[in-house]
């Protein structure tokens, strides 16, 4: 076998910076330690039942050994019945405990896995809104799906199986030492070969398997995307390119398969030869010892059979050690989320009044690059403020500052004279809500989708909220009413209905200030018209900051702020701005003719 270098292209390499942190080895270790402590009892039980099972499994070789000893001595009375009874007893004990080992291992693994995935979600839902806005949910999503999946095998099988394997080997060696102490060193002959082979292999294998898995996922991803984008693929005549891309991904993936196959082509003979060496050296060395009269023939038989039994635990350890190595990376990614400091906020900061102010605000996403410059504005309670301006001018950023999602770099954003960024997120949202294009309908009942805004709400209140946004018509027509399953996989709701649900949540949550970011922009004009009517009812009496896409939104606002290059360039009512004949006026003329 000629050596093979790893392929040049690594599908597991990151193309972009990860948006969320990855755990350091220290945090991962600390977490694993915590996990082990939490499940100490289960580990102890597993080890105990495993010990009984392994000891019972050695009864066979031991009994046979003593029988061989007697038979070789020419003894006529072999106590066959007693031996068979002992043998059968040990077998029943062994079968019963092997079953327990497998079951206890699975119970332990499942419990740890459940802990892990629940811990992760608990951490995720506690993330500061600012982190989520900035990082997006894509990275988090891939962690909860791909990484949890990869860890599932490690937790469910690798950890318990490795525990079993290690103790198994130790017990077999112990059994060998007890029944034929002189033979124990014979086992060690094979150790250098095994250690050298494993070191070579495990230095290369984990990252190679990671790349291989990523390469395979990339093949599936090309297909999934092509299916999803069927219409685009057809209209742009991209079919041929998708096929070519998939074939290229297959080439990249199989190159890694070939490499890992090469790694195993080295490991497999090492393991096979190790087993054979152990068996042969026990027999040969032991044989010489018997011929010399140092040990009995029964001891040799027992020793050889025990040596033969070592195949299973060694294979077990090698098989799952791999998995554990691969899982480490996933674990680091999951644990990394724990490193994000939850913004505790200062519980003593309470707003006094509903006045929203921005004072000399500077803000940037990156060091040294400000997106907003010296923004100062005052939004009295009940005002309707429209932010207009070209894409990328900073409208949405300003909206997020006013909603308390980001903290200004310098300057202050206050609600009722209290600084928004110093309040806990849970306090902020009692007062201010940000509504964007994202009208997520959660998988679950319609009731759950509304209850999240006010968990104590009665059904009558939910219906009232739906009524307030004109949604009670279709909602009452649902066969299961509030119990109807919606969201992906359930009843498909139109974008307009999804938006009505989002608005009904607002009615229930009842914040006095709303920041609307392109809230209706993804809807077709007809649906938007209906919704805007519902929306106007929801907005009644509240302070509203609307990031306006459509000029008619701006037209009816009390105040319009034109945002250009991170600054407020024009500020005033519609009529004032039209009279001022600036950028807004020019646009308005083009829109309205």
């Amino acid at each position, binding site marked *: 076998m000629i050596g093979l270098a790893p392929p040049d292209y690594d599908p597991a390499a990151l193309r972009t910076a990860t948006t969320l942190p990855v755990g350091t080895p220290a945090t991962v270790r600390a977490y694993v330690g915590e996990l082990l402590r939490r499940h100490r009892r289960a580990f102890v039980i597993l080890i105990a039942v495993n010990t009984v099972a392994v000891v019972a499994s050695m009864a066979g070789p031991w009994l046979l050994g003593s029988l061989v000893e007697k038979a070789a001595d020419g003894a006529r009375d072999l106590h066959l019945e007693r031996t068979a009874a002992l043998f059968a007893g040990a077998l029943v004990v062994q079968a019963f405990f092997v079953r327990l080992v497998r079951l206890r291992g699975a119970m332990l693994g499942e419990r740890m896995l459940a802990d892990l995935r629940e811990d992760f979600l608990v951490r995720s839902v506690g993330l*500061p809104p600012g982190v989520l806005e900035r990082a997006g949910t894509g990275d988090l999503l891939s962690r909860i799906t791909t990484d949890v999946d990869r860890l599932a095998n490690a937790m469910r099988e690798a950890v318990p199986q490795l525990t079993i394997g290690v103790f198994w080997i130790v017990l077999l060696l112990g059994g060998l030492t007890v029944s034929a102490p002189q033979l124990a060193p014979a086992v060690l002959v094979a150790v250098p070969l095994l250690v050298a082979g494993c070191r070579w292999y495990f230095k290369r294998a984990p990252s190679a398997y990671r790349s291989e898995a990523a390469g395979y996922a990339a093949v599936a991803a090309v297909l999934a995307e092509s299916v999803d984008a069927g219409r685009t693929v057809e209209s742009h005549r991209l079919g041929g390119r998708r096929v070519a891309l998939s074939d290229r991904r297959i080439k990249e993936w199989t190159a890694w398969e070939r490499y890992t196959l090469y790694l195993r082509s080295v490991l497999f003979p090492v393991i096979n030869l190790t087993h054979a060496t152990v068996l042969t050296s026990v027999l040969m060395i032991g044989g010489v010892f018997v011929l010399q009269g140092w040990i009995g023939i029964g001891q040799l038989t027992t020793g050889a059979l025990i040596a*033969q039994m070592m195949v299973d635990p060694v294979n077990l350890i090698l098989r799952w050690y791999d998995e554990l190595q691969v899982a480490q990376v996933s674990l680091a990614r999951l644990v990394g989320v724990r490193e994000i400091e939850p913004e505790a906020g200062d519980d003593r900061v309470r707003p006094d009044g509903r006045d929203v102010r921005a004072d000399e605000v500077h803000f940037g996403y990156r060091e040294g690059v400000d997106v907003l410059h010296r923004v100062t504005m005052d939004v009295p309670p009940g005002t309707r403020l429209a932010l207009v301006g070209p894409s*990328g001018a900073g409208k949405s950023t300003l909206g997020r500052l006013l909603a308390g999602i980001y903290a200004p770099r310098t300057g202050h954003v206050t609600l009722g004279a209290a600084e928004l960024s110093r309040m806990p997120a849970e306090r902020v949202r009692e007062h201010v809500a940000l509504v964007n294009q994202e009208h997520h309908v959660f998988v679950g009942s319609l009731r759950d989708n509304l209850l999240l805004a006010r968990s104590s709400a009665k059904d009558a209140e939910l219906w009232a909220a739906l009524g307030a946004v004109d949604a009670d018509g279709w909602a009452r027509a649902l066969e299961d009413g509030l119990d109807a399953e919606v969201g992906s996989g359930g009843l498909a709701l139109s974008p307009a209905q999804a938006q009505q649900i989002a608005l009904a949540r607002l009615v229930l949550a009842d914040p006095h200030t709303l920041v609307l970011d392109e809230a209706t922009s993804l809807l077709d004009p007809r649906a938007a018209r209906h919704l805007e009517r519902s929306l106007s009812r929801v907005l009644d009496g509240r302070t509203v900051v609307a990031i306006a896409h459509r000029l008619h939104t701006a037209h009816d606002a009390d105040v319009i702020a034109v945002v250009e290059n991170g600054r407020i360039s024009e500020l005033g009512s519609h009529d004032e701005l039209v009279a001022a004949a600036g950028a807004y006026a020019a646009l308005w003329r083009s829109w309205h003719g």
Partner: protein
Amino acid sequence: MQIRDLPYVDPGLPDVRSGPRFLLWLGRRQRGGQLRALSWGLLHFVSVMVLPYGVGRAVQAVVDRSGSSLALAGAMLAVAAVCIALGDTMLHRTAVTNWITAAARVQQLLIRKTSELGSLLTRRVAAGEVVAVSTGDVEKIGWFVEAVSRFLAAALTLVVVCVGLVIYQPALGVVVAVGVPLLALGVLPLLPRATELADVQREKAGRATELASDTVAGLRVLRGIGGEELFLKRYRRASQEVRTAAVRSARMWSAITAVQVLLPGLLLISVVWYGLGLVADGRIAVGELVTVYSAVMVLSYPLRHFEEIAMAYSFSRPSARRAARVLSLERIAATKTTGAGDGTLTGDLYDPATGLLAPAGALTAVVCGDPDAAGRLAERLGGHPAEPEGLPSALLGGVALDEQPLEAARTAVLVQDKDPVLLSGTLAELLDVPASGSVAADRALAAAESGDVLDALAQASLDNDPMAAPITERGRSLSGGQRQRLALARSLVTDPEVLVLDEPTSAVDSHTEARIADGLRNLRSGRTTVVFTSSPLLLDRAEQVVLVHEGKVAAVGVHRQLLSSEPRYRAVVTRETDAEQQLVGAQRGAPEAVFTKADTDDIEETA
């Protein structure tokens, strides 16, 4: 076929009449590989079975106090060890190669079928179904196809061993030969129930993953408005259900493990019981007894393959059935294609069903009150609609597009639907589409006003080059408006004879939309363009505006003229309904808007 030669130049024409036929077809394609795996497997398993013989010989040599016999047994063990190592490694290599080539072949078949069907695929089967074939089913199919040769090698070995034992030591051999089939079949009755429980567990795990990813996908909503506890509680419940199902499944599997210990153990006891009697009677030697005992211990290894093949088949059968179903889908042409597709399609675009006429070389805007009808009309304009409504084909220069070959129709007319999908890759890859070649990427991007998108992408890329910046699946890392502009730039790069755009700027702000309207008109000057929109900014820049009402052309003109002369047009474009017109018109004739003011005196002028 070697792994390094993948992918296949041509994955072939599969037999998709049923799942088992598909499996058979896959197996036949790699007959050579199967034969190689079988041969190496035989070498491996047979050599493994030689070990007990060596052990017995060694013990007998010691009993006989013969040093040379002991050395001979040692040499025999050494040779067996080399054969085992060689056989195992080569069996693994050939079997894995069979697995990989089968998996690659199925993946290649899937992507080819997907490309062939295009928009049709997801109308016939759920998208999830196709993706499930690619992500889960391929592995199971590959597993079964690969396991067949290993199983055959193991089964043949068992036959050889039983026959060998009967010859070597007839009395004991018969006991083993009777016992082995029982061992092989012993756990099979338990397997269906166990795989069933494993399926339940997988299903529950899938549900929990779905809940978790759904919660994370809507996390911004949760953090913005509350309800985290509600959703955590729900996820914990699902997660614990997975755990319970997994433990229930483990109970079954652990029972199987116990049977796997118990049955060979019983055979061992019988062998020892019966064998010792023979030893005591002096009919067999001690070494022979040890050989048989050791052989029964080792037998569990090839025996495991019986269980594996049963599992592989029960897992792969539904997978193969699903794969066969997806691969058997065909594109059935609604009408016969008569055109040869050699002539260049050009001229006025005309839709007989509505009477819509888009003159060659002009920018036509279409206003349609019903967005669904607009979408269907746009699709029909390109020919070969996915779901024909029985309406006459659109004509391009008098030629019926439906009767042209699909490729020719799509080349002549590009229809960008309401929700164009951005495919992942770099920006350069996104814009690298089949095109006329006369519109460069930078011109298209400029016309689509993508300057700020480029800035954002440059920040995300490793070397500040926006063209090398990655775009994630569906462009999820971008805002709705940014996505729309990149999709528009892609369509502009294509530079088709006729470009049909359905609401191309619905998520773009007014400032930018106005500039896009100018850019679009300049870039497409002299080319036929049809835009479905209700935005005054776009309508104002069209050379001709057509109002389609209830499936028929109701008015043709230019924006300002229609605005004053056609109330139905005004209703759609300014978003007024008749009732609102009366209501609001009394106030100040302003368009209906987000802020419907009941009382205009409430306005506070703050600055």
